[in-house]
């Protein structure tokens, strides 16, 4: 009985890693499409996003089954409940990547619009997502805490980009739609950073049993 439960927990862990990998690919592809103005690559991101949605449903079903059939307690319960919460955040990361890709496919943004700040922000966000999933895989408390702290960096980039865009808006030759698109992209990256923080917090909860915020 227990060994079957352990097997199922292991499978859950693997599924979560795979879902994390899908999220990483989605955000990396969206960022690359943005950096290179590659609309073809951008059009592939929604597919990944759909894969992520499917995976979320699979994992949710798996968690529900485990909760009902095994009635876990203590650490097992924490693992499963945090998995249930984590998939929601992962799914949002997938969605946001899809949103960025969608903006890229509209081809309002040219490669030259990609300021250094946006690229830095994309890199920082990818790092956060990757690290949060690494923290989950390795059950690394220090890394999870580092992800939570790193959110300030991404937030800082968002503020800088906002200031840049405000200046652009002020100039007479500015393209309003483009500026708004860039602002949306920056906001999506900022949201993904927040979701990575949430994932890191759930990782901490599943290890320590304490959840802050």
């Amino acid at each position, binding site marked *: 009985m227990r060994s079957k439960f352990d097997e199922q927990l*292991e499978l859950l862990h*693997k599924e979560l*890693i*795979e879902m*994390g*990998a*899908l999220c*990483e690919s989605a955000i990396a592809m969206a960022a690359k499409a943005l950096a290179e103005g590659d609309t073809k690559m951008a059009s592939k991101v929604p597919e990944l996003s759909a894969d992520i949605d499917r995976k979320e449903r699979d994992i949710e079903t798996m968690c529900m089954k485990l909760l009902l059939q095994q009635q876990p307690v203590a650490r097992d319960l924490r693992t499963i409940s945090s998995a249930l919460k984590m998939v929601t955040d992962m799914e949002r990361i997938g969605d946001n990547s899809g949103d960025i890709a969608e903006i890229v496919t509209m081809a309002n943004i040219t490669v030259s619009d990609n300021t250094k700040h946006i690229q830095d922000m994309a890199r920082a966000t990818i790092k956060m997502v990757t690290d949060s*999933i690494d923290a989950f895989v390795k059950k690394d408390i220090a890394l999870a805490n580092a992800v939570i702290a790193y959110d300030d960096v991404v937030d800082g980039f968002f503020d800088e980009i906002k200031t840049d865009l405000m200046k652009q808006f002020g100039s007479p030759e500015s393209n309003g739609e483009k500026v708004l698109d860039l602002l949306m992209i920056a906001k999506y990256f900022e949201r993904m950073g927040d979701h990575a923080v949430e994932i890191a917090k759930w990782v901490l909860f599943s290890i320590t049993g304490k959840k802050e915020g």
Partner: protein
Amino acid sequence: MKKRIFRTIFAVAISIFLASSLLFMAVLYDYFSGIQQNQLRMQIDLASQGVEGEGIDYLQKLNIKDYRITWIGTDGSVLYDSLSNVEEMENHFEREEVKEALSQGYGTSSRYSSTLMQKYLYGAKRLSDGTVIRLSVTQKSLLILTLGMLQPIIIIFVIAIFLSAFLASRLSKKIVKPLNALNLDKPLDNDGYDELSPLLRRIDAQQKEIRKQSAVLRQKQNEFDVMTSSMSEGLILLNGKGTILSINEAAAAFLGTDRCCTGEDILEINRGLALVGLLNKARDGKHSEWIMELENGRYQMIASPVISGGTVSGIVLLIFDVTEKEQAEQLRREFTANVSHELKTPLHTISGSAELLANGMVKPEDVPAFSKRIYSEAQRMIQLVEDIMRLSHLDEGAANMKWETVSLYAAAEEVIKVLSDKAENMGIKLELYGEAVQINGIDQLIQEIIYNLCDNAIKYNRRGGSVSVTVRETDKYAAVAVSDTGIGIPAEHQERIFERFYRVDKSHSKEIGGTGLGLSIVKHAAKLHNAEIQLHSVVNEGTEITVKFPKADNDHLL
């Protein structure tokens, strides 16, 4: 086991107790009835003697409670009864015991009295006058007997339960104790039950077998580890679920992990989608491969399923580092593309001009100009083909070329003599400094190095600029430095100018001339001499390229 032994012993004790007490009661009942019969007979004898002597007076004087005495007349009428009124009693002639007494002198019977709800034992004796004296006594039934003894029986039963429980528990512990104390690590050192010794001997034999087999397995594992650890390819063995059974050093390095990850899931080390897809395919029993880009290069991954009994029981993952291979392939592709392009351009000019000439569409006075163009383009092609041949010759390691003592200064002098006209045409001062330095090398290649460097220095120079060639010598090396006052090389191009066909300014290559192979030839020729090339260039100020021929290394090439 202890519990079971306890239960068995306890049950046996209790059931033996119950059975024996039942048997005991039965025997006891039989015994008591015998005694009662005898007593009855004795009492009847006594009573009959009394009645024969004294008649009814004796009976009336008699005061007994345990017995009922009845005196029956010869006709069966009751003459006296110690319990009931004589007048009310019926004729007793037909009673069994009376009949028996009349015919045999003594008779007994037992009856269940419906009036008194008890079993009675009767005894009758015929007196000498033909009357019968009868005594009856209540006989206790087995149930009554048992009920009467209920209290002691219960007490004994409770004591028996406790005693048997205690003994059963002690006994079961005692039986099990040697079994628990068995030292299975050394089965033969136990002296518990003799009955266990075949089992223990068997365990011992099996343990020895297991030890032997695990030693063999360990040795095999070690051999396998040693073999795989020296492989430059990465090798990972996974079980059907994706857990790592074995990973060699190269694979761990490729995947960027330094810890020992045997027993973990492969996804914990690398969760790339490509790898997940590869493993899923392998799990479906298909062989698949993929080029994967990791942080430190490009790797070709090959996943093959291990199929046993119709199911995939494991996956073998092979990883090759193809970074260099891919780079080399890339270079080769670029080279081929460049060569075709460079060869095609002059051919187009030649074929176009020749076509015009052939069709007679060229005015006679223009013919020399066309011929000249065809000639110069053909020359350029020859130059190009020569350069390519020279390069491929150098690639082959400059076979058939003679190593000899070469004077760097003399070689530089020779080159300057050849190039002086060209330099003069462009108004460039060409100067040679330094001393005579001898090195061991291939004269032709040394000249080519200096020629190409000087040629570039002139080509990419300004009018009125200068080119200086310096030959010098230190303890460790002999060096030729060519410096110019030319346009310089931007920093981002400095790394690539030694590649074949690489040009900083691609748009003006035709005006300047050259094949784009010069510096590549320099690089290869220098490499053949184990020489080191140093580049120092500032845009719009000039470039200095120094080729250093190491002295010590040159000796062993002799």
